[in-house]
Every structure is written in C-alpha cells, then in structure tokens.
C-alpha cells in the first residue's frame, strides 16, 4: 500500500503541473492586463510597472519564473493589494476556509449517518419519509439559496445568531450549517440505501442469530459495511464543499480564500486568482489520494498493486 501511495503521489505531480500550465497561459492570452485602467498610464509608468512584475520578459521566461517561485512557495505579488504577496493573502484565508470546511464535513458525516441509519432502521415509516423529504430538499436547494434564507431567518428575523463575521463560536454555526446541509442530505441518502442492503445481508443475519444486542449489530456490523459508499463519496463531497464555501464566505462575509478568490476574479487580480486555483487543485488531488487509501484500509476486498 505504501508503494501505491507513493505512485499515486508521483502521478499527482503531472496533474498539478498541467493545472498550473493551463492556468498560467490562460491568464496570459486573456485580453487586457491588470494595469489597464480607465485612465491610461504614461508609457514610462507602464513600462516600470511591467518591469517590476516581470511582465516585460518573454512569455516562456515568465512561465519558468512563476514555476520556480511556486516551488519555493511564492505565488508572486498581488496585482491589486499592492503591498502583499499572494501567498500572504491566501495564508490568512486558508485557516478560515479549512475550519469552515472541516466542521461542515464533520457535521455532514455525523448527522447524515445518523439520519440515514434511523431512516433505514424504520424503513417506510413516517420518520423514514421525513428523512427522505429533508434529504431531497437538501440536495435540490443550492447553497446560495440556503445560506441567505438561514441568515434571514436566524440572524435578521429571530436575531439568535450573528449574521456575519468570524472568530466567535456562534458566528460559525450558520455558515457551517449552510455549507453542510446539502452534503448531509447526500450522505443521509447514501447511508439509508446501503444500510437497508446491509441489514438484509448474511453477516448481519448471522450476528443476530448469535444473539448480539441490536445496538451492536447495527453499529458494529451493519454500519461498517454501509459506510463504504460514503467514503467513496468523500472526494466529490470535498469538491462540493470547496465551491459551496465560496458562496457561504460571500454571504456571511468570512475572510476565507473563497472570498479572496471572488474579489480577485472581480478585480482581475490574476496572480491571486491563479494562486487560489493552484491551492485548491493541490488540496483536491491530496484529498482524493487520502480517500483512496482510506477506502483500501476500510474494505479489505480492495487491493492496490
């Protein structure tokens, strides 16, 4: 398995390389530069600016410069926030986004599993239908509808929780719920389906025949088998959380990388946008690798060689 991990890690390098290359050249063939303003700058000023940011060199040289800097963890200067370098900006935003995403993932997994299991144990009961209804709702209604509505109800109308900001625990509740809800719905649906199947399987019947208490049968034997589809869903879930956090950070005004990304995109801050894409790509690739390894560890039938 260690060999497999290393091979996958090496395989990820060309993928990342392709991403960086596409992003870099897309940025350079785009019409208009970051210094094109309504009032055209004087030629000498423009030349100076271009020289400062290395934009006067040939394209291939710029590309290798960017790559070289990237390897040293430097993503170049931000074109809009003049005094900051991109990795400084992203370094500030990353902890916020990570905390938000991690909490949302935990909430989605725990509550999704709980709801799905309850629904499966009481198949075709009212509880079951209620869970299905909630899950359908959560899957269909997108983040950018849920987040403002939650904010409207709990922050504006009821004023139980703050509508925006970051730092306090109570400021985290609404964003985490808004981000977790759709994923929770998917997890609940997945668990419900696989749990119903697992409860009918031979090994669970055997466990019951041995006279094991119901709780142990469900948690130790059925759930263990039922959780596998959720593990393989973790990859897409992480991607969905990433895009979801762009919206949630925007609605709740959180200083995460998603908001910097949107700000950068709206201001045509090329280096900031590219830096975000690189970070996100690295994250997705690494996360997918972890999920694959986890899957192998949980399901002994899966063998990698």
């Amino acid at each position, binding site marked *: 398995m260690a060999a497999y991990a290393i091979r996958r890690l090496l395989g990820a390098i060309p993928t990342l390389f392709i991403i960086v290359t596409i992003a870099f050249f*897309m940025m350079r063939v785009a019409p208009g530069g970051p210094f094109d303003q309504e009032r055209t700058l004087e030629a000498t000023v423009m030349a100076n600016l271009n020289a400062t940011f290395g934009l006067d060199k040939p394209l291939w040289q710029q590309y290798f410069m960017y790559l070289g800097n990237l390897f040293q963890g430097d993503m170049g200067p931000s074109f809009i926030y003049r005094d900051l370098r991109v990795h400084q900006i992203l370094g500030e935003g990353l902890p916020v986004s990570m905390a938000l995403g991690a909490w949302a993932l935990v909430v989605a997994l725990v509550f999704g599993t709980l709801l799905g299991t309850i629904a499966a144990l009481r198949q075709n009961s009212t509880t079951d239908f209620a869970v299905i209804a909630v899950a359908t709702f959560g899957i*269909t209604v997108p983040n950018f*509808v849920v987040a*403002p509505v939650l904010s409207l109800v709990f922050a504006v109308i009821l004023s139980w929780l703050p509508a925006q900001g970051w730092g306090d625990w109570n400021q985290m509740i609404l964003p985490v719920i808004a981000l977790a809800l759709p994923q929770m719905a998917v997890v609940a649906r997945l668990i419900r389906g696989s749990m119903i199947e697992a409860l009918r399987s031979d090994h669970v019947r055997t466990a019951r025949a041995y006279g094991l208490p119901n709780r142990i049968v469900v948690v130790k034997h059925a759930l263990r088998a039922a959780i596998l589809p959720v593990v393989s869903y973790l990859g897409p879930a992480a991607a969905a959380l990433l*895009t979801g956090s762009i919206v949630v950070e925007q609605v709740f005004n959180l200083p995460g990388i998603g908001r910097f990304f*949107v700000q950068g995109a709206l201001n045509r801050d090329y280096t900031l946008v*590219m830096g975000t*894409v690189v970070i996100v790509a690295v994250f997705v690739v690494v996360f997918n690798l972890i999920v694959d390894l986890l899957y192998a560890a949980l399901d002994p039938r899966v063998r990698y060689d």
Partner: protein
Amino acid sequence: MTDTTLPDAPVLTQESRSLWATAMLRLRRNRAAMASLVVLIVMLFAGIFGPLVAPHSYAEVYPEFVKVPPSLTPYPQAEAIEPAAQSALRRARLEIGEISISGGQVSIEVASSREIDPRVSRYIDRSDVFSNAETTVADDGLSGVITADVQQLYFLMGTDGNGRDLFSRILISLRISLLIGFLATAVALTIGVLYGATAGFIGGRVDNVMMRIVDILYSLPFIFFVILLVVFFGRNVVLMFIAVGAVEWLDMARITRGQTLSLRRREFVHAAEAMGVSRKAIIRRHIIPNTLGTVVIYMTLLIPKVILLESFLSFLGLGVQEPLTSLGVLIAEGADNMRNAPFMLFWPALTMTALLFALNFLGDGLRDALDPKDR
C-alpha cells in the same frame, strides 16, 4: 413417463409496445414526475412568452416605487395619491379642497381668490402619477374641479432596489436560466456523446488514453476553471454556454462509452456485422437508438446542474450582466436587501427551488421509466 403438454404459446393479441411507449406509460403513473412536468411546462411558457405579455419591461425603472412590497392592489396606493396630488399642486397657488379617488380617477376640488386658469391642470400632468388632467372651472371662476387619470401599476411581487418590477425580472431570468440550461446541456451532450462513443467504439489503446484524460479532468476543481475563463475572457452569455457545457460533458462521455462498449458485444450488433451492414449504419441504426434512453435521463439531470452552475456564477457577480438578469443575480440582490425587503429574496428563491425540484423529479421519474434494469 407422462407426457407433459407444453402450454400453448401466449397469443400476442395486443401490439407490442415500443420502449418509448412503455416508458411513457410508466412515467404517466408517476405522480411527482407528472406534476413536475406540468410545472416545467408552465415555467417554459412563462419564460418564452411571459416577458412579451408582462405589463412592465424587465428593464423599466420606476424611480418613485423602489422596493415596494408585493401587492394585489395597484400602485400608487390610495393613501399615497393625496400627498402626490398635493405636492404636484403646491406650485399652483391654489387652495386644495377635498380629494376623492374612485376607480383610477381622481378629482381634486380647488379654490382660489383669483380667477383660476384652466391650464393649472398641467401641474398635475407633470407628475408621473397622473395623466389626462382636465380642469372644470365653476362659473364664478374662483373654484373648480381637476380630474385626472391615476396611473395604475401592478407589482405582484414588488419591485427591486432600482424600482423595476420583480415579477417581470423573474420572468426574464427564467428565460435566461432555461436557455442556458438547454444550450449548455446541448454543448455538453454533443461533446460527451461524440467523445464517449468514439472511445467505446474504437476501443483498445485509444480508449485507454481517452478515458485516462477524462479521469484526470474529473479530479480538477472545474468550477474554479470556469471562473478563470469568465474572468479572463470577459462576461458574456455565449461564453458561459460554452464554459459550462465544456465542464459538464465528462459524465456524459463515461456513460456513452460504457453503453457503446456493452452494445458492441451484443448479438444484434454481431448479427448486423455478419450480414454486412456498414459501420456507419450500425452506429446509426443500433448504437445510437439504444444509448438514447440513458442519454435522455442524464440530460434531464444535467439541466438542473447547469442551471445551478450558471446561477452560482451569476450569484457571485460573474455571470449575466445588467440589465439582463438570471435567478442567481436576483437571489444575490435579494440576499443583499433581505433586511428591508425580504420579498426580494423570497420570490426568486421560491422560483429557483420550484424549478430545480421539478427538473430533478422529472429526471428521477424518467430514469425509473427508462431504466433497463426492471424492464
């Protein structure tokens, strides 16, 4: 040994139903899917014809009615007419008597110490609220009645922050969202089906390489690339179709490839090959019709995804630009104004939710109806 008589082969009295006829029958039995179909057809008509028949243009600004709440009664409302008349007549130096309103007509009693010039009605006409003002001066010339038509504007869902009718804007945004949904899906469908069918039909090494590329693309954070594309090449609707379509073709490619692969090994394809049917004819007559069912299912499930992606971009301010609008833009505006005008969030969010529910239920229904597994 006893002779067992084989039961007579059942006589086929009814005509055999085609795949599509059976699917339609099943679909008709699915109540959620049929309700969704009705909702979708209504929305489709609303999107196509709604903006043409709506009383207000989606871009028309009524500066005096900014963020007015939804109401079934016309604007300006009765209690607002009196002040409007008073302020319109302020410069006319008249004593204003009783103001009475009845059914779109207002009559204002006026009096003055000097003779009243019938042309004072022009003051009333200048206001946006009134039109066709006429003055009837009494015989003594010192008092009279001004009558005028009152503008009657219906804002069923209220107006937005610029004083534009929200209902008209929802209609036009439905049109934009559905248009992008269908067109981008068509783009994704074309790329995906061609790519997948090619990979599946040629097979071997080519198939391996082509599918490996799809795998790599799958692991990329595509939404970020769409945003990059939109940022670098400006925001226009055509580019959005292509960008969104170019992102969503991967599923379609995988599905078509799988279908093609399994179809190639089926007896009827072998039979056709043995009979000397050309490759082209096999693809046209056997492969494509048999993949169609699956493709249709995924198409109905793809449309909501595409609409969602477009709205997501518009929500962030990277999609459709003013004065055009889409559901994402309206929801974003509603979210900004939810403190003082919650209806601006409510109606677009409701429309979006209904649209997505309908599309998803119909897609699920179609999948159940066409699923070859329980046939």
